[in-house]
């Protein structure tokens, strides 16, 4: 299948998944009604008069409660998938993932520090995102330095460094939250360590959407350089690509994306591991294809998983990160097995 066909198919599936996910829930709605409400709202915004033929509480459920959350799942899924793609190219290892390598944990520390000490708390989401960005960047650089061994990054060393740093930072997050003496922060601890999209509001969508679009544009501009990075630093250099400089630039992009996504949703694991892998199985390793396809696939994935997190154990809701962990953990183990089998041959 051609890339454009994949992009079209995935976009169509994503639209369907968004509508279906909005329809799911304790108050059962049907997809047609959801579509009518969303369409009506959008038309109204651009000045077309629409007479609503739906109950006002349905409008509230669809437009005020569920839709922003589903759209956030879309943005976060796309962002985390992109981060996974880039991290894997940067360290030349398909097992890299922002959660496993401690980047998300670093972002969590940054986010809760801002919340707990309120240094910039007045700036709201922007301050939390800024804190998360700084935390993510620090964690990325730390793991990268720890994993290096004579200019190379052995896979085992990378994952061990990432897991160690990640655990440490998760501990720091818990410590900050518990000692901050803020009740609501403590009750949100689960959100920061497992990830959750509950109670998302429209106003929170702007920043992640802007960062996602900017990040995507930046990465597409570097797509060929990313291809060269996969071939190794030496080859990249002979193609006129300065690998070290590019890597530093990508660390910033990755940290920014991770920071913002964690600021709005906490640390959701394994999306960055599973999605790029499936994407490469579908369209190969060329980044001009991998980047857009993985973003769409990540969006689709998280919309569906968040729908499940919301409805499977209703009326109880489980953090979306719990389900991604259930999917991602076995997936990771299967990848390890396949690698081991390949290396034995």
């Amino acid at each position, binding site marked *: 299948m051609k890339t454009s066909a994949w992009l079209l198919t995935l976009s169509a599936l994503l639209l369907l998944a968004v509508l279906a996910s909005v329809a799911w829930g304790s108050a059962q709605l049907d997809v047609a009604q959801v579509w009518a409400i969303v369409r009506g709202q959008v038309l109204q915004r651009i000045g077309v008069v629409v007479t609503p033929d739906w109950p006002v509480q349905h409008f509230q459920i669809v437009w005020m409660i569920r839709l922003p959350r589903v759209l956030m799942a879309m943005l976060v899924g796309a962002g985390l998938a992109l981060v996974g793609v880039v991290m894997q190219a940067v360290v030349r290892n398909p097992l890299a993932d922002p959660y496993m390598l401690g980047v998300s944990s670093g972002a969590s520390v940054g986010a809760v520090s801002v919340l707990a000490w309120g240094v910039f708390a007045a700036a709201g989401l922007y301050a939390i995102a800024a804190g998360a960005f700084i935390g993510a960047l620090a964690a990325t650089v730390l793991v990268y330095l720890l994993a290096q061994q004579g200019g190379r990054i052995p896979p085992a060393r990378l994952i061990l460094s990432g897991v160690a740093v990640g655990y440490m930072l998760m501990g720091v997050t818990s410590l900050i939250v518990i000692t901050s003496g803020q009740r609501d922060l403590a009750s949100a601890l689960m959100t920061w360590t497992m990830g959750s999209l509950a109670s998302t509001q429209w106003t929170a969508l702007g920043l992640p959407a802007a960062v996602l679009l900017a990040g995507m544009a930046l990465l597409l*501009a570097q797509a060929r350089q990313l291809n060269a990075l*996969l071939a190794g630093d030496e*080859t990249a*250099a*002979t*193609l006129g690509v300065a690998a070290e400089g590019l890597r530093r630039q990508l660390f910033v992009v990755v940290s920014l994306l991770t920071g913002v996504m964690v600021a709005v949703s906490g640390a959701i694991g394994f999306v960055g591991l599973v999605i790029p892998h499936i994407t490469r199985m579908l369209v190969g390793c060329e980044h001009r294809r991998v980047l857009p396809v993985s973003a769409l696939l990540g969006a689709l994935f998280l919309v569906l998983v968040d729908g499940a997190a919301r409805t499977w154990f209703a009326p109880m809701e489980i953090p979306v990160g719990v389900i991604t962990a259930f999917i991602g953990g076995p997936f990771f183990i299967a990848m390890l097995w396949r690698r081991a089998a390949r290396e034995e041959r």
Partner: protein
Amino acid sequence: MLRAQGLCWGAGGRQIVRDAALHVEVGECVGLIGPNGCGKSTLLRILYRVLAPQRGQVWFEGQDIWRMEPRAFARQTAVLAQASATAFDSTACEAVMLGRLPHQGRFAADSAQDRRMVHESLARVGAAGLAGQRMSTLSGGERQRVLLARALAQEPRLLFLDEPTNHLDIRYQLELMRLVRGLGITVLVVLHELNIAAQFCDRLYLMQAGALVASGTPRAVLTPEAIHGAFGVRSVVDEHPITGRARIAYWMDAHDNE
């Protein structure tokens, strides 16, 4: 075309390249030979601008290579290095397209010219049939040819090769070197098989403990004394009855090197 003078490079208190000077003229195939660990790969990496020399300079067409734009240098020279394994599997066509990178704009799609160069390059190395195959499914010889096609897709005027025949069967060694010679591109190649070097190179540099100790035609460089000095083995050098090039046969006495 390429000229280097006074090159030095060391690490950890060890001098790996000492005061190396060499030159490569247009159309030549120049070989760099020497025992394992003598610094020949390091010297080559300095020459292809991946390793900055601690002393000395390299000029390409009269220009200091470290004053050139990396992309400009990559449009005129290409490298076939020893392949490193990767967990990411691309198709042969994609691998070759990577060679177009120094010629491509940031947002530009692959142009018709890019695609033509990729197919031409694959055809030149006799790998046109492999275009759609994944790199992991290729044999060592096939992979090496595809990587050579990538280097050709860069449209280089000077080609660097680092032990390109390593791990290849003798047939693929000869095939690859014949192919390289038939390209009509200036070549600087690191080789460790002396008979291959003698057969395919116009001139040789012999390296020993970081220094270039001899240079000239294969006949002039590959003397039993020089081979014994560098490699510590005895040899006879005569003329290959078919190719007319130098031919080396080695042996070692029971008490040598003890």
